[in-house]
């Protein structure tokens, strides 16, 4: 038998027998719940803190607002629909399938109306994709602000979608040669609309009706939403009711007043659709301190890129002086989240924890300062800079920035 690290002998010191083992517990004696107890189940009561949370001062009210996925408590890559973040502009609406209509109009040979039942008759496809709000990490542009990965990076989810390729629906209507863009719009009162170049529309965009196996949740666009792989969440129109083929972009409110990125000189970038490679250490992090003291520690996080697959994630425990390439839990999936792990022996000293994603294009996630040098501090959107968590000796953590 092999020699154990120092911590081991301490932790394994003899004590008194644990009554949780030596005494027959109620759950080992009496019956639990039968198979008719929860036809559709929820998480166990002990996990009641694993929920979406909103930050009340971010917006004037909760109807046009956002909440955050508890990424700090999740693992793997799939986001459960129940706690996948929501962003509404006029609240989550309740739209029954029999009441659902999808119109395709504009520069097409045949302007059409589909029912939900029609949608289910087209050939389907399936894919896992992340949906990230362009404003994710937006509160951090001017400096460290929110204390937890849920709040700094939680405007994202990653689900397995099933739906009809948009190009199939467009082929059904027949796109005219003058058609160069599409305009997509939701059935809610915000009538949230965005313009998308036809090239993307004919590539991988889909009209999805299932997420993680089941019907889309109400708050994610039931019965049908757009899935725009790799592109900002605002384009993923929920409760999709209309697709118009147009010659040019509509330049609607969501693509002019919002979702444009103002540079330091006051000029603003528009049409910044793609989400660049990004990563974050989800735990340990401010909401998930280290409670076990020195020794083996799993450092884990998520990485994603709107430009393809994540090929590598590096982790630094010293604020970016030295980096170790982390283990990807599985090979990267294009425009989907990748889980990474760094198995670390923590010496109990302070750490400045960072992660840095690399995608298949060779793009390396930049520092926040490198982004600021180019964009200034007023971009609001597309903050994909490297995040730093200051882990203190007591295992607690804080959101900081470093030189």
């Amino acid at each position, binding site marked *: 038998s092999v020699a154990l690290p120092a911590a081991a002998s301490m932790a394994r010191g003899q004590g008194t027998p644990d009554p949780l083992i030596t005494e027959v517990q109620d759950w080992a004696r009496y019956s639990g719940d039968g198979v008719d107890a929860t036809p559709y189940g929820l998480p166990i009561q002990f996990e009641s803190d694993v929920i979406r*949370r909103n930050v009340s001062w971010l917006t004037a009210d909760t109807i046009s607002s956002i909440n955050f996925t508890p990424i700090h408590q999740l693992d793997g890559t799939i986001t459960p629909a129940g706690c996948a973040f929501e962003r509404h502009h006029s609240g989550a609406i309740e739209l029954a399938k029999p009441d659902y209509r999808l119109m395709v109009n504009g520069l097409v040979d045949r302007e059409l109306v589909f029912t939900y039942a029609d949608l289910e008759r087209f050939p389907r496809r399936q894919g896992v994709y992340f949906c990230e709000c362009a404003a994710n990490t937006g509160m951090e542009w001017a400096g460290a602000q929110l204390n937890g990965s849920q709040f700094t990076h939680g405007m994202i989810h990653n689900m397995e979608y099933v739906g009809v390729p948009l190009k199939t629906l467009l082929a059904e209507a027949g796109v005219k040669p003058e058609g160069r863009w599409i305009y997509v719009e939701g059935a809610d009162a915000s009538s949230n609309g965005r313009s998308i170049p036809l090239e993307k529309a004919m590539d991988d965009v889909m009209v999805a009706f299932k997420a993680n196996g089941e019907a889309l949740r109400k708050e994610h666009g039931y019965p049908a939403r757009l899935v725009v792989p790799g592109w900002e969440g605002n384009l993923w129109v929920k409760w999709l009711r209309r697709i118009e083929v147009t010659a040019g972009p509509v330049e609607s409110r969501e693509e002019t007043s919002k979702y444009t990125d103002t540079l330091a000189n006051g000029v603003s970038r528009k049409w*910044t659709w793609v989400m660049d490679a990004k990563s974050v250490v989800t735990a340990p992090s401010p909401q998930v301190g280290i409670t076990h003291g020195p020794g083996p520690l799993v450092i884990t996080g998520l990485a994603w890129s709107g430009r393809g697959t994540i090929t590598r994630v590096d982790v630094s425990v010293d604020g970016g002086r030295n980096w170790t390439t982390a283990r990807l839990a599985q090979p990267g999936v294009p425009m989907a989240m990748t889980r990474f792990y760094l198995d670390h022996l923590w010496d109990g000293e302070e750490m400045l924890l960072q992660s*840095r994603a690399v995608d298949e294009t060779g793009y390396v996630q*930049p520092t926040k300062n490198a982004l600021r040098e180019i964009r200034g501090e007023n971009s609001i959107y597309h903050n994909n800079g490297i995040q730093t968590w200051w882990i203190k000796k007591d295992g607690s953590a804080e959101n900081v920035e470093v030189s």
Partner: protein
Amino acid sequence: ETQTARDSAFAAGQPLGLGRAALPEEISAWNLDVSPDGTGLPDGSGDVMTGEGIYLEQCAACHGDFAEGLDNWPSLSGGEGTLDRDDPEKTIGSFWPHLSTVWDYVHRSMPFGNAQVLTADDTYAITAYLLYSNGLVEDDFVLSRDNFAEVRLPNADGFIEDDRAETEYPAFSTEPCMESCKDSVEITMHASVLDVTPGNEGDATGDAPVEAALD
């Protein structure tokens, strides 16, 4: 026979014959978007004073009497010259490139909580008032499809297309440093909202809003 039909219809990307023709009345009901060149604008018109009346009744409670904003609700006027400063104030006058966006958004998305009920005339009038409150027209201005294209918003030229491919991707695509990448590392900033970790009530109530990015 089935097999042949499937081959021809599915393989060649031919239409499958699903759905039905959209009727003209249906298309008019939903095809409401307005483009920068005025495409999509309906008949009708409205003047500043009529617009002020409707605005005060339906909009001012949130956006302020002169569209200057209220509490956390968006301001729709003011902010000129702030785009290159810290925390720019982005309004129709200071930021928006196209008047069509105002007409379209107000018509389809406002008033918040009671949307998609404004008439074309209402919307022309409110839009005229919003131009006026931004100091862009006089108080006798009347807006209609005919003069719509003449109105140019101050920041019309303030936008460029996404240039990350040129300005960022080359710089951010070099082989990253792995060892001794810096001499020293100092903490330069601490989280300004420390008490964000919430209880179980699902609402992270922090201190003052330092940067309310989502308004």
